[in-house]
């Protein structure tokens, strides 16, 4: 009898041990794996997508906002008749039936069919009651002003991981501020996927992107784009750029370039070079619009005054194997510096460059930011470095004085001319005035003085020269009466394969108004006009048309 009791006890202990071992296996060895599987069944982790910041003009109107949209995706494994589904979807989402069908036939659990589906399209697709088709919410960009300031703004594409990313212009430069930070909600859910309130809930709050408030004036931008478009068509040009700046603060008030693209449909752009903003990335030889800067440098060094007479202006100037001629082969012996600018006399500028010398010319080019980035707050700024001083020949010194053999971008040129307009300070150009957080905090971007370049006397003198150039120079026929406008025309030949093509030019005009207290500075650059190659007959009229509208818009009283 005793052995039966002992046997039963031993059996119970053995079974107990087996249970303990098994429990040890499931709870300790496999414990983590089981817990994770259970976690994935009853816990739902949702991502809270942050709203991308808006981009607003100075009147607080958003030229870039967000609109609700959806990503149409499919689970091909749940679709019985892929061809039929593709045929039904194709006309609604404006895609080829064959390309949709190819995606639906893949052996995947998730394929993206089309992005940026709006609510109406979603409702049409839902009415088809197709199996295996669903939507994911994805806001996408809205452009209420269509392609206004497209080059300046940039566009939002995808990065390698499929997340939204800004490219070019403001979207690219301020991508981190605009994108915000995604949040997360971790909550217990029931079998139907509904949240259970008594369960543990963890929330990581999302941070919406910050809004950009620009210096761009919507009305000025509209005027600039309208007039530039008209001008390009009238003069048969390949394209053009106009930009307007407040010379006292460096604030960019408008910037337009054509040809351009629609940022809402950037993927349809025929040429990816349209994405770059020519205002900040087009390097070109400025031509005669560079002359006021060199003249100002020489005056600032007290090497010349407005009444200094030129002693080599009676004919072409020979330098080594080269001959420098005036643009129209007209020469004015004993001309004054005032008249050199008025006549846009290349031989007069050779005289000035000789007075200045290479060292001082180089120094002023550096001080004016030529050959360097201006640090404008736009992605994609390019610049062309100036050749080392020891690689300059006498002919290079001469040609640089009238803006050939040296490359600038429109933003560099406009910033440099603004230094004459504002009494001698080189300002840092900037598009954004304020950055606004989702919690209402505002960070102001204050104007920045890079350095003092010219004295006030110098700038007063050069301003008079530029006013004289407008009133008596080649473009005088186009100027609006009643206001004093300072400006300079420019016509530069385009270098091709080591020589200049005389029939292809960049025509430009740079200036500011009203000259006595400038409200704006502006650059107009027209690429390869065909009706006339000269800046005085193409870029200048566009400049004056825009200037007239701006002077009226800013209520600047007439003087004459």
């Amino acid at each position, binding site marked *: 009898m005793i052995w039966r009791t002992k046997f039963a006890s031993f059996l119970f202990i053995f079974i107990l041990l087996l249970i303990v071992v098994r429990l040890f296996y499931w709870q300790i060895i496999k414990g983590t794996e089981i817990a994770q599987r259970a976690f994935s069944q009853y816990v739902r982790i949702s991502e809270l997508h942050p709203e991308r910041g808006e981009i607003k003009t100075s009147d607080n*109107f*958003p030229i870039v*906002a*967000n*609109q*609700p949209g959806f990503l149409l995706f499919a689970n091909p494994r749940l679709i019985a008749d892929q061809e039929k589904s593709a045929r039904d979807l194709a006309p609604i989402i404006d895609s080829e039936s064959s390309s949709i069908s190819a995606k639906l036939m893949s052996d995947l659990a998730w394929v993206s069919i089309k992005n940026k589906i709006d*609510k109406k399209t979603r409702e049409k697709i839902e009415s088809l009651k197709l199996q295996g088709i669903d939507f994911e919410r994805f806001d996408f960009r*809205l452009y*209420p*002003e*269509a392609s*206004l300031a497209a080059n300046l703004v940039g566009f939002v594409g995808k990065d390698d991981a499929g997340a939204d990313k800004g490219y070019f212009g403001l979207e690219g430069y301020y991508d981190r501020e605009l994108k915000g930070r995604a949040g997360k909600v971790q909550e217990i*859910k*029931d079998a139907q996927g*509904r*949240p*259970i*309130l*008594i369960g543990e809930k963890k929330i990581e709050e999302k941070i919406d992107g910050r809004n950009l408030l620009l210096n761009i004036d*919507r*009305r000025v931008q*509209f005027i600039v784009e309208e007039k530039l478009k008209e001008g390009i068509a009238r003069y048969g040009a390949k394209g053009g750029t106009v930009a307007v700046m407040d010379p006292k603060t460096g604030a960019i008030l408008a910037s337009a370039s054509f040809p351009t693209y629609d940022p809402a449909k950037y993927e349809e752009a025929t040429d990816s070079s349209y994405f770059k903003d020519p205002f900040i990335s087009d390097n070109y030889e400025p031509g005669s619009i560079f002359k006021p800067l060199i003249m100002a440098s020489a005056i600032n060094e007290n090497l010349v005054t407005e009444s200094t007479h030129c002693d080599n202006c009676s004919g072409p100037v020979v330098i080594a194997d080269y001959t420098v001629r005036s643009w129209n082969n007209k020469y004015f012996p004993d001309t004054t510096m005032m008249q050199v600018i008025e006549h846009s006399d290349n031989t007069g500028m050779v005289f000035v460059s000789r007075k200045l010398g290479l060292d001082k010319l180089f120094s002023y080019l550096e001080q004016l930011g030529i050959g360097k980035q201006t640090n404008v707050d736009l992605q994609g700024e390019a610049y062309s470095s100036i050749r080392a001083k020891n690689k300059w020949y006498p002919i290079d010194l001469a040609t640089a004085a009238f803006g050939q053999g040296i490359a600038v971008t429109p933003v560099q040129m406009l910033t440099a001319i603004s230094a004459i307009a504002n009494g001698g300070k080189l300002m840092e150009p900037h598009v954004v005035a304020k950055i606004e957080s989702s919690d209402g905090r505002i960070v102001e971007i204050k104007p920045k003085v890079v350095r003092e370049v010219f004295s006030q006397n110098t700038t007063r003198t050069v301003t008079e020269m530029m006013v004289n150039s407008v009133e008596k120079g080649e473009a005088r026929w186009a100027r609006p009466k*009643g206001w004093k406008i300072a400006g300079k025309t420019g016509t530069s030949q385009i270098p091709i394969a080591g020589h200049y093509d005389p029939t292809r030019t960049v025509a430009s005009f740079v200036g500011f108004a009203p000259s006595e207290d400038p409200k704006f500075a502006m650059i107009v650059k027209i690429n390869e006009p065909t009706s006339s190659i000269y800046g005085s007959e193409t870029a200048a009229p566009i400049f004056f048309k825009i200037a*007239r*509208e701006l002077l*009226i818009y800013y209520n600047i009283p*007439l003087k004459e």
Partner: protein
Amino acid sequence: MLIQDRAALNYVHMKNASFLLTIMFLLIIVLATLQVVISNKLSTAGVQLTTLYDNSAHYRDENEAIKTQLYSALSMASISAKAKELGFVVDSSPLVIKQKTRVALK
């Protein structure tokens, strides 16, 4: 102490202990019942919560759609096109008052 007194004292102590135990037992029953009732209510609140989420998303989408329409209506392009349609023309000739005008001074 007399045996009868000690017995009486023990009896009182036991009676108090029983009373306390009964109270605690009842309290446990009540609290457990409350927990079950509240948990039950909360666990099914997920249905209402989902409905609220859906409603909130619907109104947010409607607001976004209205905002989109508003922005389009207020755009320069729309206003300019509407103005042209209505026959407005740009008058860019500034009004200049050349003579000194009398103004009323306080």
